[in-house]
């Protein structure tokens, strides 16, 4: 079964048809929620708003709370120009922080879970990215002549490194076995296994 026809990525006989409504829903469900950057931003907004409100309102009602030294702040702002390095540094810092938040908000974010193909919108199954790689490594290690195998998922590829003597023929066998296992699990989007053999 294992032919040695060059390095064409192996595909099992009937690759699962992925990309239906259920798969799209699963992809959305398992996508990262950006909780960490959102927590940081929300904390910043709350803290800054609360500090400013407390300072201004307490001063307005004649009982100033000293969160920041208002006198020193005012003096600083009145004596430093827009072209002073401190002003420029603060402006640059704000812009950098904004760019980071914007980046976190716009990029889709990397999820730890990979959805598995299904037809039912009410039953979504996901597997940890790491476990998907381990499944490929396990399939490789189950073969005769293969020592230790390690794998990781990179984009739409699963990079598999195995120890064993056997050259291209072994690589082909390992790829067949690992790809068959991955196709059984049917990750969305489909992943292609690449194999590197270390003697």
């Amino acid at each position: 079964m294992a032919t040695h026809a060059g390095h064409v990525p192996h595909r099992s006989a009937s690759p699962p048809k992925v990309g239906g409504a259920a798969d799209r829903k699963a992809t959305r469900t398992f996508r990262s929620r950006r909780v960490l950057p959102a927590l940081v931003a929300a904390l910043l907004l709350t803290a800054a708003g609360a500090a400013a409100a407390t300072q201004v309102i307490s001063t307005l009602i004649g009982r100033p709370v000293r969160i920041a030294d208002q006198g020193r702040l005012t003096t600083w702002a009145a004596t430093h120009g827009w072209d002073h390095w401190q002003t420029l540094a603060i402006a640059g810092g704000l812009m950098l922080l904004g760019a980071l938040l914007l980046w976190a908000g716009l990029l889709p974010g990397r999820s730890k879970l990979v959805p598995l193909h299904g037809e039912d919108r009410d039953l979504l199954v996901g597997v940890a990215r790491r476990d998907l790689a381990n499944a490929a490594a396990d399939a490789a290690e189950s073969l005769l002549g293969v020592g230790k195998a390690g794998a990781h998922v990179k984009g739409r590829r699963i990079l598999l490194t195995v120890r064993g003597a056997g050259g291209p023929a072994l690589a082909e066998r390992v790829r067949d076995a690992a790809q068959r296992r991955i196709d059984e699990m049917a990750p969305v989007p489909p992943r292609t296994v690449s194999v590197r053999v270390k003697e």
Partner: protein
Amino acid sequence: MDRRASRLNHVGLTLFGLALVAAGGLALLRGLGAWGRSRATEPVLTDTVRRYAAEHAWFWPVVAGVAVVLALLGLYWLLAQLRSHRLHGNLTMEPDADEGETRLSSKAVAEALESDVAAFPGVQGAKARLMGPRRHPRVQLNVSYDRGADTMALRDDIRDRAIPRLRAALGVDQVPAVVRLHLVRGGEPAEERRTVR
């Protein structure tokens, strides 16, 4: 899991990021002389601004109001991260007739589902959580599953055996389920294969 919080984070981060980039960028441009040398050397806080604030009674109250609104927005955003939609306590079933209602502990339902799923081949452990809203409950399942076992078979078992029983117990037509698989070592087949080598 909760897509509403996810959308809120996307919009919130984008808007907050844009506001900071705009404020920092404009200040930077002004300092670097984009609007002329004299405007760049002007102090950040000019007498004109101070006089304006002093002459208009509404100025500081408006600043305070804006600060309060920002703080409340931040608080709402924070709470949205922490909110869980997990169902606790008893689920009140929709009464079929006028004679009373049935109550069901959500914990008991989750545990029944866990033992159903744990009995499927290859499953090493299962943890279930019922999520709201109460009238349209959802379920979140964490399953430890043999690395070598068939994930499609597990999906079929959950769909054809576990979910129908859950639906019957809850008395609803649909219970959307999200399953997180953790593939673990163990189980006979993997051991057998290893000894061949």
